[in-house]
């Protein structure tokens, strides 16, 4: 039996060695030189592009497809939309941490979020979110990995696991890296003839003030305070208010203020943006089409212009 243990131990050590070599090579030769795609490429692009942008937009697909940096002059001329499909504020806070550690220091961070981000505090949801930024290895990511449990810590130990399901995507984007032109990250969605489905509702949403996402947003505010960055939290509307829950939205807004959030622009109720109520502004119930996004970005710019001067960190 001793032989089995010895050989098993040797095999494990060899595997760890191989894992380190493969992941190191992939990270340094391919990943670090990939500047597009949602597996870390867009984050690399911002890191390489400009260490002092006027503003950065973080959030999910509703940020990526709905907020056009070129229509936000109130925040400056040099901005980038770093919205990534499926992200919550937890991932946004991790991305901000990665950017700051890599010397990127914007004047303003505009983060899009929704009530739904704060309604599911399951371990699986947290894991889904943090694993999105796994190729990066920061103390903040590690602290979340620790909170998930020993199993995740063991897996995270392996470099190949940190690249899990990203290798092909990153590899493809690496190959087409020379064809990336000047971009600001905004991706408008073409309009469709079919009206969006507005049948589902947010009636069952219940805001959880102690959720990992709420605490992540609080941490994001602290990071911004430490680095003299203005943090603006934006809640965009939904078609036909399908994702809007008035009572829970109010509870959330009050609670987030207690969490230390300074600037929040709540446009989640479609009644506040009547110009966007028509189906012709929407690709689906969650996402505006390009025309809707341009209108929304203008509305957002006006709302930012109206913010009291004292609310900003004053850079």
């Amino acid at each position, binding site marked *: *039996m001793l*032989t*089995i243990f010895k*050989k*098993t131990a040797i*095999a494990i050590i*060899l*595997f760890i060695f*191989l*894992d380190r070599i*493969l992941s190191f090579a992939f990270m340094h030769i391919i990943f670090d030189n990939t500047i597009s795609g949602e*597996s870390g490429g867009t984050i690399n692009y911002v890191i390489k592009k400009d260490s002092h942008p006027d503003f950065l937009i973080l959030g999910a697909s509703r940020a990526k497809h709905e907020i056009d940096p070129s229509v936000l002059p109130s925040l400056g001329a040099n901005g980038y939309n770093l919205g990534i499909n499926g992200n919550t504020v937890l991932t946004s806070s991790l991305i901000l941490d990665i950017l700051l550690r890599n010397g990127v220091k914007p004047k303003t961070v505009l983060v899009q979020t929704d009530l739904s981000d704060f309604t599911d505090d399951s371990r699986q949801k947290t894991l889904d979110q943090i694993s999105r930024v796994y190729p990066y290895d920061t103390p903040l990511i590690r602290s979340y990995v620790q909170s998930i449990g020993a*199993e995740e810590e*063991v*897996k995270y130990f*392996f470099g*190949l*696991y940190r*690249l*899990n*399901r990203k*290798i*092909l*995507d990153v590899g*493809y984007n690496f190959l087409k890296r020379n064809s990336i032109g000047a971009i600001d990250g905004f991706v408008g969605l073409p309009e469709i003839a079919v009206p969006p489905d507005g049948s589902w509702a947010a009636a069952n949403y219940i805001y959880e003030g102690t959720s990992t996402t709420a605490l992540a947003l609080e941490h994001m505010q602290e990071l911004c305070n430490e680095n003299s960055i203005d943090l603006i939290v934006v809640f965009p509307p939904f078609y036909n208010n399908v994702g809007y829950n008035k009572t829970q939205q109010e509870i959330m807004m009050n609670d987030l203020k207690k969490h230390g959030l300074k600037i929040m622009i709540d446009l989640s109720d479609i009644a506040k943006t009547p110009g966007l109520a028509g189906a012709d502004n929407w690709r689906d119930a969650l996402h505006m089409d390009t025309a809707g996004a341009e209108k929304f970005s203008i509305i957002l710019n006006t709302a930012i212009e109206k913010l009291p001067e004292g609310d900003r960190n004053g850079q």
Partner: protein
Amino acid sequence: MLFDSFTFLVFFAIFFVIYFSVRGTLRHIVLFVASCVFYMWFIPKYVLILFLAIGIDFYAAIRIEDAATARGRKRWLLIGIVNTCALLFIFKYYNFFITNLNGIGGLHIPYWNIILPLGLSFHTFQSLSYVIDVYRKKVRTERNLLVYANYVMMFPQIVAGPIERAGQLIPQLRSLAENPVNQSDFAIGMTRFSYGLFKKMVVADNIGPYVTAVYNNYTHHTGATLLVASMFFSVQLYADFSGYSDMAIGIARALGFRFNENFETPYFARTIAEFWRRWHISLSSWLRDYLYYPLVFSFGSLSKFAMYASTIITFAVIGLWHGANWTFVIFGTLQGIYMIAGTVTEKMRAKFVDLIRLSKLPRVHHAIQMAIVFLLFTFSLIFFRASSISQAWAIIMKIASGISIGAVNVLDTNGFTIMCVAALILFASEFFVFRKYSFDRIHDGRRGGLASSVIAITSVALVLSLGFWGGASFIYFQF
């Protein structure tokens, strides 16, 4: 406890050390306790059902051997079979039976709200084969309850097979006490386990979400998307089940046990008959020995009708074995129809191949044959995967209404790419390596240790880098 979970790795490491540290009866006890823990991890109280099945067949087999008359032997055989089948009927087929009875007779007999015990179809078939083999005097009755209990519920195969025969496994269990630690068995077993892990986590689990998303919203998808999803389901099912079998056989091998093969690269079969000799071998051979042959002989003559009728009945039972739903019966019956059609048209097809001179291009001919078998099986799997006959029919109609490659909805580009790459790696490894060489042959060959290590390390590396870590259950656990 799933083989592909962290919990299982810890469980197995602890078990392995204890198992090889003890000898004699204690080793049987360690294996039995470990099997109980493994099974009870899902729903603890269902182990009692398992104990009941073990008790019935253990006792029935002893009475069969001890019976003084042929009538007595037959009576105890029937008691064993009826009681074991009753368990299967109550837990698996009762609600199905009631649904049909209510439907036909306009009755309102209440349903029984119960969850199917894991692997019930597998261990009841294993128990049945034991009782029948004792009756046929093919195996000696096992009078040590611990040995028999381990035969039925040994943890690598308790949930989803392979369905081991008593003649194969019980002698190995009898010599378990003296079984020495074997480094070669451990290496082969772990290599096979790693490859099974790759099949399950990289191939099956990456495909699963796509197939589920398409089938759950089949009304919103084009015929092309449904065809692609159906073809991927064939790959998923194979990778999921054969992956489980590889893991089960691998774990057993690491402990020194030899299990029978359950799959032999079935998608490279050139006829449906050959396919079923290579797909879920432990089930198809079980039904051949305990149902098909007795059925053929029960017709009194070896006529074509006897063989065709027996084929249809046997495959319908294979379908029903999978689940209590008419969709499974259709799936099974289709296999029977394919088999008969294959036999009836054999000469005609051979003439046609000669006529178009395809016989002069054997490789092309074989590739076409493999593709046809794959497509026929994929077609039958639409019934297997669909939740109802009407859903399956709607999917078939959509596919039949026209296919355009440009109309395929990949849903998630990255996920779809991973699926395709994973399936390609699987088929390439099966075609170039495992179609020709077994794990034993690789290990025992020149530089076999290195080759085995490369397979194991590559599999684990692929699991880490491309695997879907969502903790998806095995498809065959529901059977």
